[in-house]
C-alpha cells in the first residue's frame, strides 16, 4: 500500500498542473470538513468572512491535488494546510496592525461597540493571537488545533508526525506560548 501511495503521489507531482478531484468525492470532503475548518480559522483570525476565504483557499489547493483522494489522510492534510494559511494570514494582519499603530490609526480610534466585558475579551483575543503569530508556526498550529478539540491521533495526522511525539510537542509549545505571553504582557503574571 505504501508503495502505491508513494508512486501515485510522484505521478501527481508531475501532472498536477491540469488535474483535480472527481466532483462527487470532493463535494463529500467539503461537506465533511468545511464547517470545522472554518471554526478553527475563526479562532485564529477572529473574522468569519476572512476565515471562509482562507478555508476556500485551502479547499481549492486540495481540489488541485487529486492524489489525495486515495491518500487516506485528507482530513489531516486539510487541517495542516488551512492552519498554515491561517497563521500566515494572522502574521500579515499582525504586521498591518503594527503599522497602523505606528501611524496612530489603531488603539484610540477604535469604536466602543459594547459592554466593557466584550472589550476586555476582544483585547485578550488580540493578545493571544499576537502570541500565536510570534511563536513557531508548527507550535501555533498544534495549539490552535488542540484547543479546537482535535485528538492526539488527529493532531498526528494533521502535523504528519507520530502520535507518540504529540505529548512532547504540546508541552514544548505550551511552555513557549506561556513564556512569550508573559514576555509581551509582564503585568499578567497570574495569566
Amino acid at each position, binding site marked *: 500500500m505504501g*508503495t*502505491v501511495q508513494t*508512486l*501515485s503521489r510522484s*505521478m501527481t507531482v508531475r*501532472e498536477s498542473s*491540469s*488535474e*483535480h478531484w*472527481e*466532483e*462527487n468525492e*470532493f*463535494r463529500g470532503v*467539503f*461537506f465533511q470538513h*468545511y*464547517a470545522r475548518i*472554518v*471554526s478553527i480559522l*475563526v*479562532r*485564529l483570525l*477572529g473574522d*468569519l468572512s476572512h476565515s*471562509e476565504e482562507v478555508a*476556500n483557499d485551502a*479547499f*481549492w489547493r486540495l*481540489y488541485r491535488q*487529486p492524489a489525495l483522494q486515495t491518500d487516506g489522510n485528507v482530513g489531516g492534510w486539510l487541517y495542516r494546510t488551512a492552519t498554515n494559511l491561517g497563521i500566515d494570514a494572522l502574521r500579515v494582519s499582525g504586521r498591518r496592525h503594527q503599522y497602523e499603530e505606528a501611524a496612530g490609526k489603531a488603539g484610540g480610534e477604535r469604536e466602543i461597540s459594547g459592554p466593557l466585558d466584550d472589550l476586555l*475579551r476582544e483585547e*485578550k*483575543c488580540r493578545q*493571544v*493571537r499576537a*502570541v500565536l503569530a510570534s511563536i513557531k508556526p508548527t507550535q501555533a498550529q498544534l*495549539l*490552535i488545533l488542540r*484547543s479546537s478539540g482535535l485528538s*492526539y491521533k488527529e493532531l498526528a495526522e494533521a502535523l504528519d508526525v507520530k502520535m*507518540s*511525539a*504529540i*505529548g*512532547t*510537542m*504540546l*508541552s514544548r*509549545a*505550551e*511552555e513557549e*506560548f*506561556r513564556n512569550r*505571553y508573559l514576555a509581551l504582557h509582564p503585568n499578567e503574571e497570574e*495569566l
Partner: protein
Amino acid sequence: MTCIHDGILRAHMDGEFSGAELAGVTEHLVSCAHCRGLFEKLRAERTQTENLLATLAPAADSIAINPAIAYAQFNRQFGTAPEPKATLIARLFAPHWRPAWGLAGLAIVVAILVSVNPVRTWAQRILAMLRVQKIQVVTIDPTTLMSSSEPDSRPYKLINQFIADNVVVTMDPGKPDLVSSVTKATQLAGYPIRMIGSLGAPRSVEVNGETAFQMTINRDRVATLLDEIGRSDIQIPESANGALIAVHIPKTVISTYGDCPVRHRYVSSNPQSQAEALAERKMERMANVKDTNCTYLIQAPSPTVSVPPDLNMSDIAEAALELAGMTPAEAHSFCQTVDWSSTLVVPIPRNSSSYETVTVDGVEGTLITETLSQGNRYSLLWIKNGVIHSLAGHGNSSDALSLAASLR
C-alpha cells in the same frame, strides 16, 4: 527507575495511556517527587495556555455554517467545473449509454463513444488496431475484477484517471448532431447511411463527430496502474515503452428504432446531476427492460490506429486480454492466431454469450447472442464497403438477419 520524559507526562495528563503504560507512569509519579513536580508544572502551563486559547473560541451561534451554501460559493469563486480536456475525456470515456452487450460489436470499434465498462474499453482501445477489415470474437470471463467493474468502483476511477492523464485528445468530436433524416445524416457523415427498411422511419438519427486521440505508452505508469488495481501479474513488454499510439475515428451514425431509452449523452460537470445520472444508470441496469423493443443500427467507417512499425501488437494485446479476463495461456494462444493489423477483436462474456459466423449483406458477419433473464439480445456485426455495421436488438437472432436483409 529513571525519570519520565515530559512528553509522556503531558500525554498522561491528557489521558492518552491505558493498561501497563498507565500503571507504569502512575506508579512512578507516586514514588518520584521530581517527576511529580514536573507534572504539576506542565499541568499549570497546560491550564494557562488552555484558558488563554479558550478566549478565542467563537460563540456557537456566530459561526453557523451551511456547507451547501458554502459549497455553492466555493464553486462560484473558483469555478471547479472540469477543464475542457477533462470534460471531453469524461464525455469520451464515460459509459454513455446502455445497452451493454447488445451493442458489443460497435461498442468496441467506437470504444470511446460506447463503453460498457472501463477496463473492457481500455483493453478494447488497445485491441482495435490499424484498419479493421475483419472481426473476430474472443470469449472472456466476465467475473474477473476488471470486467465486472462498476462505474463507481475504485478500479474504474483509477483507470479513468489514468486515461485522463495520459490520453491527449487531438480532435474533439463536439456534440452529436441529431438529424431528422437519413439523407441529412449521409450529408453530414460523408458516406452513404442506410436504414432498416422493415422497421419504417428511425426514431432518431445521430451523427457523431470525428474524434482523434493519442497516447504514449509509459511502461512505468501502466505498471503502477496495474499494481493499484491489483493486477501486477500482467506484464507490459519492455519494447512497448514510449510507443505512440494514435487513433482516428471517423464520423459515426447511430439510428434507433422503436422504444429506445434516452441516451445519457453528456457527463455534466455538476456533481449533483452526475450523481443523479449515475443513480439513473444503476436503476436502468437493474431494470434493464426499458429497451426490449429497441433496435440500434450503428454505422462506422473503420477507425485507423497508427502504431510504431516495430511495436509488437501481439504482446500488448496479450496483456489487454488478460486484463479483460483471459488466463495468460489463453491470451497467448489466441494472440498467435490474430492478424493485429486488420482484425477487430470483440471480447464477449463467456458464460452468457455465444456467437456464430453468418452471411449478411453479401459478406461474412458475426452474430453474437447474449442470454439475459428478460430474453435474448443479439448483436450482428459485419463490414461492408469499409463501413462497420452493428445491428443490435432484442429477440431471436434470426430477427437480426431478416432486419439486416431489409437494409437500404
